[in-house]
């Protein structure tokens, strides 16, 4: 049994040596991730339950999401294999639309989220560089449900990179969805961008 242990140690040593060469993939401490979700959640709930005009609330939500979500990393993950097929202009446009869809979607549900509350569940390390924080969300008049937030370290700051509801990861689902739209649009990223623009137009009506 000494051989595997030895080789593992050697591997560990090699990994340590190569660490400085790796990009900044810092560990995400579950407690830190939980504190981050607690703070962000409180902020979000505060805006959702406020009586400010819709425009003001939307601006506040946009501000919170921009600060707490890794828009670029998540957007790139979701575009997946099509990221490299996209031109730099399309990439930039995609990230802009992705952020807009995220904000508009949440903003279009302000009414439903009146009186929303949440409680922090457990937080656990998922991979080397991200942690999963469980929250229990309660809306008046409907059953409580759990949402798991995947938090990663992005340039030294905790950022949301995924949302898991009912065992389904939103970024995985959205990656399939967007890829299907591109493929059905003749393998053109432009087809997705068009569909996203239409969606935003619909949501802002």
């Amino acid at each position, binding site marked *: 049994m000494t051989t595997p242990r030895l080789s593992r140690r050697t591997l560990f040593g090699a990994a340590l040596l190569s660490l400085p060469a790796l990009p900044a993939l810092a560990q995400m401490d579950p407690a830190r991730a939980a504190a981050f979700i607690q703070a962000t959640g409180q902020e979000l709930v505060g805006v959702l339950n406020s009586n400010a005009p819709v425009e003001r609330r939307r601006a506040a939500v946009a501000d919170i999401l921009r600060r707490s979500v890794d828009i670029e990393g998540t957007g790139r993950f979701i575009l997946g*294999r099509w990221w490299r097929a996209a031109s730099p202009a399309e990439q930039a446009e995609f990230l802009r639309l992705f952020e807009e869809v995220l904000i508009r*979607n949440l903003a279009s549900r302000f009414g439903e989220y009146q009186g929303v509350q949440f409680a922090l*569940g*457990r937080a656990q390390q998922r991979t080397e560089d991200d942690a999963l924080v*469980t929250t*229990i969300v*309660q809306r008046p*008049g*409907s*059953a*409580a*449900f*759990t949402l798991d937030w995947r938090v990663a370290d992005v340039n030294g700051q905790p950022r949301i990179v995924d949302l898991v*509801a*009912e*065992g*389904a*990861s939103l970024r*995985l*689902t959205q990656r*399939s*969805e*967007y*890829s*299907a*739209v591109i493929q*059905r649009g003749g393998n053109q990223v432009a087809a*997705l961008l068009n*569909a*996203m623009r239409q*969606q935003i137009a619909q949501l802002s009506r």
Partner: protein
Amino acid sequence: MRLRSALLSAAFLMGLAGCATPPPATDREALQEFRANNDPLEPFNRAMFQVNDAIDTVALRPAAVVYRTVVPPPLRTGIRNALSNLRAPTVLANDILQAQPERAFRTAARFVINSTLGLGGLIDVAEWQFGMPGHTEDFGQTLAVWGLGEGPYLFLPVIGPSNPRDLAGLAVDAVASPWNWIGQGEVVEALRWARFGLTILDTREEVLDVLDEVRRTSLDPYTTIRSGYRQRRQTEIANRTGAEMPVPSTGFGSVGQTPSDPNPR
């Protein structure tokens, strides 16, 4: 008849374009995605999705909306509890078949408590007073635990997202349920139909918001439901659900879910 013509065109489409053409082997990423989606029958499935949409729009969804509007929440909860109590023997059998004695014990204890103190299952006393939340199991999950693969993704009208394994599981659970062979006569027959009808209403009502949301926000609801269903099944099979998963999600097809505890273990 729109429905009939839709069915006919679906049958036609199935013959014409039942199978999807896989991407060429040279496009490795596309091929990888094609395999990961596990949907070689996509053209057929999309046709069935349309058929289901038609049925859902004219019948199932309106029925669920009426059910939600007319039946007060406490009664709906009672009906949901009673329906999931009736599923307890099925859950118990699958707990045992999956060699999960602790979960089997909980299912059995809940059935005894809720059938008696819970007035025939209407009140979930086991969770409320004994802190024993329920969970669901089905034979599709048991087959998965035994190592059987899911087979190609299937979307079927009314049943919704599925696959050969889960479909077989659904049939086995339906046939093996003790309520199918206990009792006879018109009253029993009527009760069976009532249960069947209520199960459909309850299930559709439960996913009303989720499906409305998918329809509203997804650029391709077919793909969203496929992805959501397959991911959720994986979590269910691994028993990472139960207490952590209070509301059954995207599947129209998951029949007779147990409402459970919002508090994580």
